[in-house]
């Protein structure tokens, strides 16, 4: 699938312009991270992919087709958006019904519904909770329930809006497994996250939004080497990157292994 944004602008009815000219292309399945401080326009941008929000000006083409040519319900069969707040998404009385709702809505055959719900539930560790009421789940489980309900629709592209918020080590590991598995199945995963370590471990391309504009679009390592641009959007590089930068390493290090490669090089150089 090829998704092309050209000079996208979006203003809320209040008149606040949230997106100020975004031109980006997405194709292939390389996982993409969307970062930027609260209020930079990440969620507003993400809600454009399947038409939940429509451009005020500029164009969005999906495989050459204009976003205006179909309804959000129609686009949702191909592009799924997982809300940041599970309460905005969940409304049925069991996890199973939540998972079946989307596939039924897009008139998927019952056989495929069963298969997809089983896969999504297993992947998101919801398989033993299918009869539970979503509001009896813990907040983090609720998040996985919303992710599973989108996966069950088997879209080609999935947008995850801040899935790492409130997650602990286990939750983050499960998210990583989900993203890897979907990537292997040929899905394009675009994720909004504030957790820089999580971004580094799982994404090859990083897009940084600042005040409604794209200020960085690069591979992960290059993105975190742009100290000044990052500082302008108040993103701190992860601690290990900052330590490497403070020590004047030539390369940007994004994990401990890279840190020690640079450290050892420097140490040998000084002997």
């Amino acid at each position: 699938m090829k998704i092309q944004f050209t000079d996208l602008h979006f203003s809320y009815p209040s008149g606040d312009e949230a997106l100020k000219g975004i031109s980006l292309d997405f194709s292939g399945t390389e996982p993409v991270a969307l970062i930027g401080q609260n209020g930079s326009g990440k969620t507003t941008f993400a809600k454009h992919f399947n038409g939940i929000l429509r451009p005020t000006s500029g164009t969005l083409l999906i495989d050459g087709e204009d976003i205006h040519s179909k309804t959000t319900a129609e686009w949702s069969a191909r592009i799924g958006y997982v809300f940041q707040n599970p309460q905005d998404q969940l409304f049925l009385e069991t996890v199973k019904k939540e998972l079946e709702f989307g596939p039924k809505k897009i008139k998927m055959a019952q056989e495929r519904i069963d298969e997809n719900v089983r896969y999504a539930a297993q992947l998101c560790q919801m398989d033993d909770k299918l009869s539970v009421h979503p509001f009896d789940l813990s907040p983090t489980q609720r998040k996985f329930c919303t992710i599973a309900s989108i996966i069950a629709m088997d879209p080609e592209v999935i947008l995850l809006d801040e899935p790492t918020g409130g997650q602990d080590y286990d939750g983050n590991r499960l998210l990583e497994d989900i993203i890897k598995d979907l990537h292997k199945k040929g899905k394009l995963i675009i994720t909004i996250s504030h957790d820089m370590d999580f971004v580094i471990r799982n994404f090859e391309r990083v897009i940084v939004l600042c005040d409604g504009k794209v200020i960085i679009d690069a591979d992960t390592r290059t993105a975190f080497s742009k100290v000044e641009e990052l500082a302008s959007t108040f993103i701190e590089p992860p601690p290990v990157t900052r330590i490497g930068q403070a020590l004047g390493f030539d390369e940007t290090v994004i994990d401990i292994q890279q840190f020690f490669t640079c450290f050892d090089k420097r140490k040998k150089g000084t002997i």
Partner: protein
Amino acid sequence: MDTKKIVIDVKDFSFSYLMSDGEMQKKAVENINFQVCKGEFFCIIGANESGKSTLCNALVGLIPHFFQGDMDGEITVLGEDTRKSTVADLTSKIGLVFQDPFNQLTYTTTSVAEELAFGLGNIGVPREEMYRRVNDVAKTMRIDHLLQKNPLELSGGQVQRVALGSVFVMNPQIIVLDECTAQLDPLGSKEIFDVVKVLNERGITVVMADNDMERVAEYSDHVLVLHNNKQVTWGETREVFTNLDFSSLNLNPPVYVSISKKYINQGLWKKEVAIKEKEIINISREILER
């Protein structure tokens, strides 16, 4: 010495929540024992559902007065047994900041200033003093430029600082924060830690449940570690972090600790483990310049 005065004393505390079907849930926390002294910046860490929120709720008396269930043991806050006290009495001394700031807002006000003044109005503080305290708190929270804004129009970090401000304005001696940075971007989270640090430096005792290990290392002086609803250890942050097996507890060690432990293993460093960014930078420089 005054600074060694114990302000929170938790003895053999266990709690099980009463479920909606009348059944008792398995223990949410079991046999917790620790003390917090006046002026400490005390952090509670542990994986999700290890019992952090239960402890926070218990310290401010919501357990057993609001949440029903089976409580064992004893919690004493500023000399008062929480079981015998009331939540209203306790909140004048120990304030709780929720994980989700939208649970803290009153939804009855249209400006940050009114939101901050709400609690003071409830206890009948005179108008002039109210103005003074609201302005003072707004400055400390770095939200004085937002006083006329509607609380619902603020960013996540800003609204969390309003929530914290609405607790701080009541002049509590202790503030308990339950994972209140979990939904914030890194800068928003740093802003919260920074203002909490300012409150702490003004003499307020801080108890903060948080799982950002680097920030816990950087800011706290004492830490309590929970795992599977039980307490693993508590003590001074550096000592605890030096000996803790993070991965077995489903926690990521602070990167400062990981790097310095590696230096120690390689014989490059012989002194204590670093728990702050400045420390690890200085240690690394020293090793590189040898």
